[in-house]
């Protein structure tokens, strides 16, 4: 059982404060959704936790199993068990998905340890079958010329192979049509389990039809202004974010 704690976190881009005191605790097996209007600071929260160099932590702390991760490099955080599914995944021309994932898994082994290639491919194909991904996919360069849906499936496949303790899924539904959304969301739902804590960042409720969260948090102007269970998402969908802006902004 692992625990990811975000304690009164403040994040700025340049001089501009974006996240202004967020507190959140996620346990293994739990699925939390963070919803909110554009500019609420949802994506900033995810990137800051992952250690993006453009985001300065100006206050608070992030703890993984009781230990602060703020002095760790992004790759150290990743190897410690944090995974960020990107809203806009980068393209890596000339590097196949299979080689990229192999390098990522190799980086998790100790000095002198060598990844077993045949076991690796066996596992890769298993995960691909589970996620209903064509095997030809792995020989393509990472995200290079991918459609929006392919990029997101590629993120889910990486998540399946890396098996993080906590996954931060940043607007995984953005830019997808309903069919692509369904495929990606069902893939993520399959990875749900007692060993994985998930933080879903989304603008719309529709993703939550496929991955039903245990907790829903509403973010506005850099703060979590309301938390509840899955019914909060439905309420939000019915009433719109104006409801949050009007009624829920704390004094």
């Amino acid at each position, binding site marked *: 059982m692992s625990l990811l704690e975000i304690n009164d976190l403040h994040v700025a881009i340049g001089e501009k404060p974006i996240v202004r005191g967020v507190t959140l605790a996620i346990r293994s097996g739990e699925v939390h959704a963070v919803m909110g209007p554009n500019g609420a600071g949802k994506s900033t929260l995810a990137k800051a936790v*992952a*250690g*993006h*160099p*453009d985001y300065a932590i100006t206050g608070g702390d992030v703890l993984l199993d009781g230990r602060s991760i703020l002095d760790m*490099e*992004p*790759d150290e955080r*990743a*190897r410690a068990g944090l*995974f*960020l599914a*990107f809203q806009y*995944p*980068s*393209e*890596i*021309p*000339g*590097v196949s998905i299979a*080689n*990229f994932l192999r*390098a*990522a898994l190799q*980086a*998790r082994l100790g000095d002198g340890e060598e990844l077993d290639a045949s076991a690796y491919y066996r596992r890769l194909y298993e995960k691909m079958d589970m996620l209903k991904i064509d095997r030809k996919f792995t020989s393509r*360069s990472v995200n290079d010329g991918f459609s929006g849906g392919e990029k997101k499936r590629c993120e889910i496949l*990486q998540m399946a192979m*890396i098996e993080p303790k906590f996954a931060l899924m940043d607007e995984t539904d953005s830019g997808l049509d309903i069919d692509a959304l369904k495929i990606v969301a069902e893939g993520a739902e399959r990875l749900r389990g007692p060993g994985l804590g998930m933080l879903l960042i989304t603008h719309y409720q529709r993703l939550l039809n496929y991955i039903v969260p245990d907790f829903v948090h509403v973010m506005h102007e850099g703060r979590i202004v309301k938390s509840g269970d899955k019914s909060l998402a439905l309420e939000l969908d019915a009433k719109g974010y104006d409801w949050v802006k009007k009624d829920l902004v704390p004094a």
Partner: protein
Amino acid sequence: MSDEPQTIALGPTAADNPAAGIDQSSGNFSYDMKYEFDAGSGLNERTVEYISSVKKEAAWLREFRLNALKTFQAKPLPTHWATRDLENINFDKIRYYLSSGQKPKRTWDEVPEDIKRTFERLGIPEQERKFLAGVEAQFDSEAAYSNIKETVAKQGVIFVNSTEALREHPEIFRKWFGKVIPTSDNKFSALNSAVFSGGSFIYVPPGIKVSHPLQAYFRINAENFGQFERTLIIVDEGSEVTYMEGCTAPKFSTATLHSAVVELVALKGAKIQYITVQNWANNVFNLVTKRGLAHEEAEIKWIDCNIGSRLTMKYPGVVLKGRKSRGEVLSIALANDGQHQDTGAKMVHAADETSSNIIAKSISVGQGRSTYRGVVHIPRHLKGCKNNTECDALLINTNSRTDTYPAITVRGDRHAVQHEASVSKVSEEQIFYMKQRGLTEGQAMSLSVNGFINDLARQFPMEYSVELKRLIDLEMEGSVG
């Protein structure tokens, strides 16, 4: 140029040994060698005469060398188009000839332990060391090791060093020597013509497809010691050969000069593939002239990877002399901090229906600078010629610099020419993405670079693409602060 008489040392003492007393900290390894012949430092007629006499050369060759020296002395440095860094070469401080005095060895067992240890330190894997049993490896200015696989010898292929070739095959050597690259081609081809030593000579008789790639390893092992190998490869009608050259040099504190000349002759319908992976130390001036002459329906392909060195200037070329001949240059250059890779290609179309292809990829890291310089020449009176030129540059961090000078001269309207160039960057987002998957910054950059050159590297023989990947990994690790 110094007019002082040169001290010629025969049989060195410890004080004469240039490798003695050098800090051999990690990465800077060098082993004491006993140099039996030494031309001292500096260059004048006596140096050239000394080299010629030690090698017991014929009068025509001594004349050739002395004339080349005059050409070298008369020619200015090409700083009107090339970097002024060339002015920092102190020709008086360079040692022009050293020999360990050993005859080329026939088997791996006979190779001195010192040399084996150096190969080991260079990280050449076990299989590859075994593979070396079928190669010629140059150690300093003479081949320390030479062995032709029996199958290759049975095919009638001559594969010896240039000194031995002059002695044993003078008629064929002389026929082509200096014909593809004349002494006066440039200042450094003149220098090489004056003082050359070592290098390979290959002759493939008609109708033979050489079953094994022929391979040579070169390295520099003495401070201030310039290496001037001379390679001549002649492939007779309808024959094929692949030659592989790998260079790794230990690091020394003062600048070293490497100035080779490589001439290829592909007779009617012949195919030559010449592959180079070079990794020079940061202080090496690597100024190499490489050119091939392609007769009718012949094909010459240069695969050239340049990593390291202070300054590399190298533009492998093909003179497409015969109808329907083909020339190709695939080039990869990596310029790290303090390095300048000035590389490219030359394609001279001199017959109808000739075609050429140039794909150049450069990577600039930190303060590294890479320059693509290309010449494609198609004259008006020809018809049906084709050229494709692609130059791609990858920049890693904002201080790096890249320039492209593609001079494509096409006259007449019966030709097809294509040119594409691109510049891309390894962005911070891309590095963050890869780090988020658990890769260190060095591993991430290495992967980006390997991806960038992947489509070219795939065309290399397996052991070379593995070695290239390893070199890039090392370079990228070192470039992360």
